[in-house]
Each structure stands twice: as C-alpha cells, then as structure tokens.
C-alpha cells in the first residue's frame, strides 16, 4: 500500500517535471509542444552516453544533459515554433509533432534502436525505515524534482525574467507593448522546459535502468495527460496532475498488472476532456478567439480534376498498372491504396471541418479487428465484414469523441490523440476478444462471390475499387451542402452557432464519416496481411496519415491519393529503412508546414 504510494509519488514527480515544461510552453507560446517527450528521451540517451561511455560523475552528467536539452529546446523554438508565430496555432502544433518524429528517429540512427542498461549510479535498496525499503536513488529523485519545481516557482515569482514569463503567458500582446522582450521570453521558456525534460529523462533512465531511444513518445503522451489533468497552462496544475497521475497509475498497476498502464493514462486523458477539459486548476477560454486552422491550411484551393482527367487516371490505375507492374510493385501498390484510403478519411474532418485528428490509427484498428473477427471467426462474408468494419469504427469513434466536440482547437486534437492511444491500449487488454499482444493470425483473404482474392493483381484491383468508392463518397459529400457547412465549421464555429447550426453536430458527423472510411482501410489491411497485432496501429501510423494529406493538400481528396503515392510508394520503391523513412516524413512535414502549407495539389488562395 505505502510502497505503491511511494512508487506513485516518485513516478508522478518525474511526470510533473515533463508536464511543467509542457504547461510553461503552452502558457507563453500557446503551443502544445509535442517535442517535449522527445527532448525527455534525448535527455535519457545523452545521460546514458555521458555516464556509461564518457564516465562523467553523476552531477556533471546531469548538468551536461540539462545544458544539451536546453539548447535542443531553443532549437525547437527557433526552427519549428517561432517562424509560425503569425499563422494559426495548428501549424506550430503540427511542426512540433514533426520535430518529435525527427528527434526520435535521429536518436535511433545515432544510438541504435536497441534497449540498453543505464549504469547504476546510485544505490536502489540501501535504506530500511519501518519495514519499507528504498534507495538513495529514490531520495535523490524526489529531492531533485521537488527542488527543481520549487526553484522554478521561486524564479517565476521573484525574478524579473520570471515576471516577464508570467506576463507573456497572461497576454503576450500586452506584454510586448509594455516592453517585455516576448521573443526572448519564449526562447527562455523553451530552454527551461527542455532542461527540466532532460533532467526528468536522466532520472527516469536511472530509475528504470533499461532505456531505449524510442521512449519519448510514451513519456511525452504521459506528460501530456498530466498537464491536461492539472490544467494546460497552469504550473501548479502540472505538478498536481503529474503526482495524481503517478499515484493512480501505480495503484492501477498493482491491482490489474503492468499491461493496463496505457489504458489508465489515456483513459484519464479522455475522462478529463469529457468531464473537466480545463483540468483541475486551469480553464478553457470563454469565447474562442480565432479558429485553429483558419485560412492557413484551409487557404489552399484544391486543383480541380476534370472528368476526363479523372477518367484517364482511373483507366491507367485499373487498366494499365496491373498488366505492366510485377508482383512486388503491385504489392507496393496495394499498400499505397490502403494508405490513400486512410488519408482520405481525414479529408473531410481535418481538411474541411479543420478538426485535426492525431489518432486516425484508432478507428483503423477498430475496423481491422472487427473485420478480422467477424469474417475469420464468425464466418461472415467479406463484403459484410468490410461494411461492418467501417460501421464499427464510426460508432466506436463517435461514442468516444462525442463528449469532446463542445471543445475546439487543441483540445479536440488532444482527444483524437487519446482515442488513437486508448484504442490500442484497449485492444491490448481485451484478451478474450482480441487475443491481446499475441494478435490475430490466419485471417482469411477477402473472398467475393465464392472466389478468394489472393494474387497481387486481384488484391490490387479490390483495393482500388474500395478506394474509388471512398473517393466517390468523399467528393460527393464535399461538393454537397454538407461540405459547405463543414467548411463553415472549420472557418468559424462561433459564427456557425450564431447561424443556428450546432457546431458539435457537424464536427461529429465529419469525424464519423472519416472513421467509417478509416475502418474500411483497416479491414483491407487485416485481410491482406492475414495477421493483426496492436503494435501495427502505432502513433506513427496516425502521423503518416496526417503527413500524407498535408503533403497532398488537406482539402483535396485527390491530394490524399497523390500524397500516399509519394510517401508510401516512393520509400518502398527506394527500399528505405524504417527509421530513415520516419525521419524523412518528419523533415518533410516540417518543411511543408513552413513553406507549402497548402500542400502539393492545391493553389494558394
């Protein structure tokens, strides 16, 4: 009992350190910094390198890590966030997301992807007090994190720069008018936040003793939950949220086992967004000032395909490609088609309605599992399974998202992220249904009217047909009156409400259609791979879907296809390694947001 509580508090302290950084940056720059988790992981890895390889003493290594991650934070601000200060915040959100992918995969390239031991710098079990065993490490971790939190608090409260940070967080325009150097304040905040993140990285590295460069995503999402639980933008809230989350998680694990930690963390995230989106200590702004995407990504005008151009493209895809391509190329083609469908699932919800979904892998996973179970284990015909996959994805996504549509902007994106993660965590834990981490094997290939679709050519043609149906659906809806209303939601929710339409309804409807399409993609994936496991639906998959439509043009259904050809087809043909591929995606996304936000298949408005 007390052991669990202590473990919870110590974990919670490190969550708090990372969460404080997130909240600090959200306060001064109005950006959810997705790179914070990667900075944390960079702290762990550089700490390992300094202690294990360079044999620095602990205190020097910690100082070195903090200096390094502070510089890293400065670079994140200067390269990704600052240049986008004048455009709607969604751009910076996507940019930090891209930076996190770049940092994680850069770290994998530099250090290698394998897990390694963090050298034991401090004793772990050398104290006995009243029947409890703990170590110098626990004491140091607790003292260092509490010390840093107090130090930061004092800095913010009593120093001139601290005052400047608080002023900027309250109203950056007013602060600027009063002579506060807002640019420098933001740099400083990023450096402080990142140094704390790096420090947390070293501490957690020592605590867990097994580390790998890919630990950033999980740490970032956890910190994110902690910051949201405490109230985004509130520093005491971040501490409180971190501690609360650590304790809840520790007790959850002690009751239900280690597998539930993600379910708890993302369950808490969704619950907070459902019940109290402002968190324990923060509050959601009363009147939303500006729409999140505004004229930034929506500003591109998709290039119209004429009917004969579209017909010619379909002719080439259906009539020429299958006969000239070899089996390997056709298999690559099916990948492209599936990802095109997945990306297409974002066109209406993220393009038209401007609700950026960071967790599209969630509905795709629901679709994949539904179809695999119904067709594989219950003998449903494939077409019924395909349709049920779309339906199940739409229903599950709609139910999970429904309480969050009254929110807008960042909060919706955070919720979609939570749904992506919670879906995978649920699949992992629903052993009786999904076989948990083992996954489902021997999923039958698609069969139509008694004919099994096995050859690459047939599979390609099936996927192409589904893509064309999905394209037809999306294009027809986008051109209809509903498409106009969705664009209006994306442009200004408040104005839509004033016109008598409930913004939450139309956002939910766009998301439901998107989830349906993502479910179709999941079903195709399941029957083609013939096996499924939860790791296939990682945050990277959601990230890829988003990168595809940012590349192709968020408003353009054809852009989704084009983006998939470039981002899925080209790396396959070039036979790029996985980490190099993700690194490329990250860099590309970063460059696109900065220099061609409207995407390839669109003109600037």
């Amino acid at each position: 009992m007390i052991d669990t509580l202590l473990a919870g508090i110590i974990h919670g302290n490190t969550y708090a350190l990372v969460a404080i950084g997130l909240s600090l940056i959200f306060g001064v720059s109005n950006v959810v910094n997705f790179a914070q988790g990667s900075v944390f992981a960079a702290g762990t890895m550089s700490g390992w390198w300094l202690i294990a390889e360079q044999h620095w003493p602990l205190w020097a290594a910690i100082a070195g890590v903090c200096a390094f991650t502070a510089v890293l934070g400065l670079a994140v601000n200067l390269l990704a966030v600052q240049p986008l200060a004048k455009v709607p915040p969604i751009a910076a959100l996507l940019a930090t997301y891209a930076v996190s992918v770049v940092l994680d995969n850069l770290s994998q390239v530099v250090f290698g992807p394998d897990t390694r031991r963090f050298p034991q710098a401090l004793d772990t079990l050398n104290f006995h007090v009243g029947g409890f065993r703990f170590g110098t490490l626990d004491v140091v971790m607790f003292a260092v994190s509490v010390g840093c939190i107090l130090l930061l608090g004092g800095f913010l409260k009593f120093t001139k720069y601290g005052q400047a940070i608080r002023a900027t967080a309250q109203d950056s325009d007013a602060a600027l008018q009063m002579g506060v150097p807002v640019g420098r304040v933001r740099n400083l905040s990023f450096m402080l936040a990142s140094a704390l993140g790096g420090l947390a990285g070293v501490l957690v590295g020592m605590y867990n003793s097994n580390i790998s460069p890919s630990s950033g995503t999980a740490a970032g999402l956890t910190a994110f939950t902690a910051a949201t639980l405490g109230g985004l933008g509130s520093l005491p809230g971040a501490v409180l949220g971190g501690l609360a989350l650590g304790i809840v998680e520790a007790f959850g694990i002690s009751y239900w086992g280690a597998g539930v930690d993600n379910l708890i963390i993302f369950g808490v995230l969704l619950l907070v967004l459902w019940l109290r989106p402002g968190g324990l200590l923060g509050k959601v702004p009363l009147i939303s000032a500006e729409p999140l995407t505004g004229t930034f990504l929506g500003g591109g005008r998709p290039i119209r395909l004429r009917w004969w151009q579209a017909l010619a493209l379909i002719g080439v895809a259906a009539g020429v490609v299958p006969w000239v391509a070899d089996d390997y190329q056709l298999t690559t083609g099916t990948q492209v088609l599936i990802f095109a469908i997945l990306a297409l699932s974002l066109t209406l919800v993220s393009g038209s309605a401007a609700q950026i979904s960071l967790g599209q892998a969630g509905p795709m996973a629901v679709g994949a599992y539904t179809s695999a179970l119904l067709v594989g284990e219950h003998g449903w015909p494939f077409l019924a399974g395909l349709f049920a996959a779309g339906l199940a994805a739409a229903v599950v996504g709609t139910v999970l998202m429904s309480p969050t549509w009254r929110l807008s902007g960042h909060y919706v994106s955070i919720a979609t992220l939570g749904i992506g993660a919670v879906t995978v965590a649920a699949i992992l834990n629903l052993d009786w249904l999904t076989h948990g981490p083992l996954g489902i094997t021997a999923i039958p290939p698609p069969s139509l009217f008694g004919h099994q679709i096995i050859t690459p050519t047939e599979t390609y043609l099936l996927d192409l047909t589904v893509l064309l149906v999905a394209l037809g659906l999306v294009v027809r809806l986008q051109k209809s009156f509903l498409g106009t209303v969705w664009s209006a939601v994306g442009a200004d929710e408040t104005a839509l409400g004033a016109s008598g339409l409930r913004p939450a309804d139309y956002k939910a409807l766009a998301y439901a259609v998107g989830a349906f399409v993502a479910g179709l993609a999941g079903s195709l994936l399941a029957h083609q791979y013939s096996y499924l496991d939860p790791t296939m639906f990682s945050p990277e998959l959601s990230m890829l879907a988003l990168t595809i439509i940012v590349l192709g043009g968020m408003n353009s259904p054809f852009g989704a296809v084009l983006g998939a050809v470039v981002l899925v087809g080209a790396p396959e043909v070039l036979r790029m390694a996985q980490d190099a591929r993700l690194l490329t995606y990250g860099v590309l996304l970063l460059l696109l947001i900065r220099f061609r936000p409207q995407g390839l298949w669109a003109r600037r408005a």
Partner: protein
Amino acid sequence: MTAERSPASASASASAPAPVLEVAGLARSFGAVRAVNGVSFQVRQGEVVSVIGPNGSGKTTTLNLLGGLLTPDSGEIRLHGRRIERLPAERRAELGIARTFQNGRVFASLPVADNVYVGQYAKLKRTRPFPRLRHLPVLRWLPLLAELLLALVQPPTVRREQSEAAARTETQLARFGTRLLPRADHRAHTLSYANRRRTEIARALALEPTLLLLDEPTAGMNQTETAEVLDQLLDLKAEGQTIVLVEHKIDLVMTVSDRVIVMDEGQAIAAGTPAEVRDDERVVEAYLGRRRAQREEASR
C-alpha cells in the same frame, strides 16, 4: 423549474405591439468585474433600439448575453414570452435571433455566396429532416444521418430547396447593390473590411430573424460607407425588422433609433427616445459630455 409566468406587460399600453424581447435583471461578471449588472429593457415588434455607452460599459457583453455566446449569472431573457437565457447560441438563432459580431466574423475560407447560404441553412426543411430530434441527446443522430444520406443521394425535393436557397442568397446579396453581387464567388478573406461587414449582415438577414442584433456595424468604416449602412438600416426598419443595435456613431444612432439605452459601468443609466436621452444630464455626464466639451473647445 418555475412555471413560465406571463410576461409582465402591464406597463405596455394596449395599443403598442407585443414585446419581442424582454430583458430583466440581466447580470454577468468576469472575475471581479461586473460587466453587466442588472440590466432590464424591452424591445417591441418593429422597433430599433440602440445601446450606447463608453468603451467597457457592457454593451457587447449585453449583446453576447442576448445572442447566447455568453450565459448570464442571473436575470431573464424572453423572446416572444419564452425564456431563452439558458439556451445555447444555435437554439436562439433557430428561434429567430440573428447577429453580427463586433470585430466581424465571416467564414473566411468560404465564398461570399456560401457565407450567406450557411446563414439560411438552419431554416431548410427538406435538407434537414426531423428538426425536433436535433435537440435530444443520441437521437440527434437520426436527423444528422438523414442529412448525410440526403447529401449523398440529393433527391429532387432537396435539389429544389437548394435552388430556392440559392435564389434567396442572391436576394440578400442584392440588398447591398453592386457591393457584393459581383464578388459572390470571391472568398470572404479577400474582401475589404467594409464588404466583410456587409457579408456578415447579409448572412444574419438570411436567417429571416425576428430579432437582429448588430454589434457596431459601422466600426472601421469611413463616412460614405457609414451613410450607406444608415440607409440600409432605415430600409430594414421600414420593412419592419426589429433591431438591437450597439453603435458608437451618435449621429447614426440618433437618426435610426426609436429608443436608446445608455449603459455605463454595466448598468443602464438612462433610456428613452433619442431626444430624451440627448438631454439627460447623467448621459451628458457619462458619455456625451466629453464630446460636447470637446466640440465647444474646438469651435472656440
């Protein structure tokens, strides 16, 4: 729940038209600031009532409370006798309140015509079936899915309604002469500031509201443009449109209003016809006094 009592209409004479809007004891605070502090007034059918007052006196907050962007801490708002102060903005719009915003909120990425089209979308019957179910949790998915299906199938009845809506859009745009019609296909963010305000007014009117709330429709406009807006307001008034207007330009207010409410520090310090208000000492002190003093100084 208290039973809905009949509106306190004892003060209104028998010959006067029924009140469209009744506001009683309206209050709203932001932290320690009492932005609106016990405001009461009525607006009758066909009246143009202006709310004036110095910056920060609570005019826009009042309008936001009427439109549903904010909910009051206390007080009542009745539209045609029906309590609406707890309803969200979209329900109030359905009931007939349309508005424009202080800084102008158009759908920037949409063409002008689509902006106005969206303004009347809530009124479409064939396109949006089962309107009553829309207010019920979970069941609201029935009308939504029906709407989705109709968007996919687009049966003739829906297409006919769409072309009628397009015609009405054109009528609203024509209200502003050649200002908007030639730009119907332009995206709203490419428009001049004044044209954006016009688009917003056209969008609000497309709802065919029983009550129109205008928040500084001439802000940022030059004299010619202001005069043009004045003409349009007088046209609307002649059509019998009930309007609540928040405005700083006193000449315009005095010309178009039937009655004027003067606000200061969250309270209505005076109300009456333009002439009455102009001569009210408190008003002169709180608001007009400074201007008069300036004018006298300038004329010296």
